[in-house]
């Protein structure tokens, strides 16, 4: 598959809009790296639909929540990680989608300050809703346009 460089620009515009909105709302947690990776990869996909967008947002939000809960509940980081990884494996099997970023998410609490960690589950939900809805809207528009070109 050829790399579509125009999506790099689309990605930048989308993330800057999101950062601007968060700044206006005074919300500090705009940039969550694993979500941005999935957004970037979704833009590169030739096919994208609402079901995929929903599943991506769902597994990412659940993984943020599980990661945060286990981080606060279990003192041993090693044990917490082991449980995180097993739970993520089960989660992706149940939902039936491959999103590698889901394995990265539960490790974020180890590198973020505690007050940010507590915001991760809700923050992920809000970020996912905005970004994946936008990606979906963009891809739908793109598919519509290419269909029109083909008809001409």
């Amino acid at each position, binding site marked *: 598959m050829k790399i579509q460089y125009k999506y790099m620009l689309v*990605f930048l515009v989308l993330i800057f809009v999101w950062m601007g909105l968060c700044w206006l709302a005074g919300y500090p947690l705009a940039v969550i790296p694993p979500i941005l990776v999935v957004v970037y990869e979704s833009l590169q996909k030739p096919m994208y639909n609402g079901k995929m967008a929903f599943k991506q947002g769902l597994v990412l939000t659940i993984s943020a929540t599980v990661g945060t809960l286990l981080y606060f509940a279990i003192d041993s980081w090693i044990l917490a990680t082991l449980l995180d990884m097993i739970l993520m494996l089960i989660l992706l099997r149940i939902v039936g989608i491959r999103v590698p970023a889901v394995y990265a998410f539960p490790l974020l609490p180890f590198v973020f300050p505690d007050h940010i960690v507590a915001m991760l589950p809700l923050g992920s939900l809000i970020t996912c809703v905005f970004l994946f809805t936008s990606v979906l809207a963009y891809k739908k528009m793109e598919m519509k346009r290419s269909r029109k070109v083909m008809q001409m």
Partner: protein
Amino acid sequence: MDSTVSKKVTMISYIISITFIIAMITASVMLKDHEIILPEVAAMAIAMWVYREAGWIRQPSKIFLAPSITAVIGFAVNQLHISYLGKVSLTLILLMLFLRIIQSNLGPSIATGLLPVVTNANEWSFIISVFIFTFILMLGVLKFGLIKDLKRK
């Protein structure tokens, strides 16, 4: 699941990948340095060693190079005396330019580039950690001949 990769191989791949991820956490606990932990390494281990994601492993040298250099970019930008939003914006633009120049599509390098800015990493252990773990990821892909599977398809 791909028919070319048997259930048993998949199971073993999961066990190796998760062991690798746990090793990273163990290193950080033993050295008492949380900047060693790179969340994206977990995603890359699963995607490259278990899923054998074609787009991610096709150019093995870039498994090491792309995330390492983006980490250096993010780390350098983080040392600048500008606002947080300025740092994130500048990093994002530089990352896209860099990926464009090396013609790579390795999404996780966006995360390793942003991480030092988002977590305000200031220790060299962060950079060294990215180098070591992405190098092991690349070796794993080369050693186990995961690319050969790809070519056969």
